[in-house]
């Protein structure tokens, strides 16, 4: 029962934060709502015994990404934005989102999943490390290259001056 309670709180926080993110009239508030969602998702990861992932989620998403987003918001702050955060096709977007959620929920709930219990116990950090650097070493290195390229690209693109 306590498990359900915890899950309900986390799921509610996730959804509520997400709704806040997409409906907020204030961009900084939206970023803070996003932070709520991200941390709640980290909680969900914990419930799934994925401690490392939860840690990464909090550090990377909650820390770095939200911070960068806030920087971006501050750098691009436009006067009198509040009224114009949504575009004219919002009603259609609502319809599309409702259709998607209906479709996904329909599929999820109507499917007979083979297992109803989470298997295995908490995953230790040594096992994580062994998996990442043995079985997944090459994708891991490639991911690091992607990050490097993105870093250089971001620097090149945002550098003042440039070709124009």
């Amino acid at each position, binding site marked *: 029962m306590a498990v359900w309670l915890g899950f309900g709180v986390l799921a509610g926080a996730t959804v509520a934060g997400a709704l806040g993110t997409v409906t907020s009239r204030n961009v900084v508030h939206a970023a803070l709502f996003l932070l709520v969602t991200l941390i709640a998702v980290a909680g969900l990861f914990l419930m799934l015994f994925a401690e490392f992932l939860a840690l990464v989620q909090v550090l990377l998403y909650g820390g770095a990404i939200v911070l960068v987003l806030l920087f971006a918001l501050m750098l691009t702050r436009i006067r009198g934005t509040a009224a114009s955060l949504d*575009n004219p*096709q919002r009603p*259609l*977007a609502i319809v*599309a*989102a409702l*259709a*998607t959620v209906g*479709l996904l929920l*329909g*599929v999820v709930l109507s499917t007979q999943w083979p297992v109803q219990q989470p298997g295995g116990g908490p995953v230790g950090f040594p096992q994580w490390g062994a998996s990442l650097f043995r079985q997944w070493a090459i994708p891991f290195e490639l991911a690091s290259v992607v990050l490097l390229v993105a870093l250089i690209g971001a620097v090149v693109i945002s550098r003042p001056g440039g070709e124009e």
Partner: protein
Amino acid sequence: MEWAWIAAAAPLAAFPLVALRGKWLPGRGAYISIAAIGLSFVLFWLVGADFLRRQADHFSITWFNSGGTRLALGMIIDPLSVYMLGIVSVVALGVQVYSLKYMEHEPRFSWYFAVQSLFAASMLGLVLSDNFLLLYVTWELVGLCSYLLIGFWFEKRSAAEAAKKAFVTTRIGDVGLLIGILVLFKATGSFDIGTVIQAAESGQISSGTLTVAALLLFAGAMGKSAQFPLHVWLPDAMEGPTPVSALIHAATMVVAGVYLVARAFPIFEAAPGALEVVGWLGLLTALLTATMALVMTNLKQVLAYSTISHLGFMMLALGSIGFTGGMYHLMTHAFAKALLFLGAGSIAHGTGLTDIKDMGGLWRKMPLTSTLFILGALSLAGVPPLGGFFSKDEVLAAVYHNQGPVVLGLTLVLALLSALYMARLVFVVFFGPDRSRESGVHAHESPWQMVVPLVALAYLAVTSGAAAFYLPGTGEGLGQFLFWEEGEAFHPLWWLIIASMVIVAAGFVIAWGIYQRGWRVARALEPVARLARRKYYMDDLYQWTIDRVVLVFAGMVALFDRTVVNDGGVNGSGGIVARVGKRLRYHETGRVYNYGLVMAGAIVVLGLMVTLLR
């Protein structure tokens, strides 16, 4: 003699060399060209000597195989090809040496010699080739070269028109030739002339097919040899430089048709009715154009019509199974006509005149040229003992043996006309009063480069009569040398010889009377003369056909093309796309969330399809 192919290959190699690098070569390329054709001439002697030691030869290499059919590059060494090799190479050599001086001041001198080389190469290839395919290729090359040379002065509109006319008219026949070759190929599965001939002789090909094929081959020969009604291009061909006319009229272009009929002679023999067509059409052509030659006043034009007339005569000989006569006349005519054309060129070179109405009394001003020219004219007229007399007699004998008295009578009339127009030229041009206003004053003899070929050709024209009895090296007459397998000696029919001599004499007397004494015969024949002068309205008929039929039809096609195809099909479909695009482009809003919405909707629809239709 397996090196015979060099006879054709040497001028062929000279062509690109002279055409591209002529400016830097000795004599602006002319010496290269002359050396090449000279090599061909030398090879003729070697091949001829070799041929007399051994017998007929046949070399062939595979060009490529296509679906079980072997296409070969090969050559036949037999009496006919050796004979033609000699005629072509000697006339081409003479013409090129002559051109050296005659064309001296032309800006496109090198190009002229390059095309002359190609012309000689294609004609030599034509007479050597052992299969119809190679023959057709060289045949078309001959046509191309004649186009280039007739239109050599293409800045002159009439020359360009004449070149076009020659090309298009001969093409009409060439299509027939190609179809004929393909018909024979379909019937026998081979392009090889020997194979086809064997099949035709052994009766493998049905007689209907054979007749059709023979007539189609003859259509090609009609185009090239200017037989009625495709003769209209040859008189216009004199728009080219005079040595070119000599080459075309004597040894290359026009004799290709006669050669084709001679080469395929067994096919014509085996095809019922084909030889009759050849003979009658030849006779008709010969008579028509002989009368035209009588009334034309341009010197070269007279010679041109005389060429057609003599070609018809050769066809008549072939049609009368006078193989030897036809080929013999081809040779004597080639030498005499080349001589006449080069002589006409000399006259034009010396006096600047081309119309015989302005000439007269040239005998006194250009004695050497005049003598040589008259020798050629007498040979063509059939005066004994010059070459033309013997070959004409051979033809007459063949006609007598194989045709009825009507044809023989008409042939004798033809002989009379032939003597008459040649006598007319002789009397009007060389004797009588000087009709030129002032240009005749500075008439002069031609330089030696032009005279030497004339002398050589005159020698050949005079002595070629002896070939009827004795051909050096063979110990027998031309008939025995040439005729397929079984020899045919020269067999004079004394009464026929006497009759033809009388006719020639009559021709000269009549011409003397009319053009020297001023007899009033011409007035009575004026309507006929006018008809002949209008070329029997053949040109007008062609013009009318083109104007009223071809152009009208072409106009209809053009209208259809402009309205239905262009406006409807091309512009119409394009216009529809453009209009639709003009409307549809507004769905490209440039706003990324519009596109995203469409994507989301599409994903939902696809997901629904996957879940519901599973």
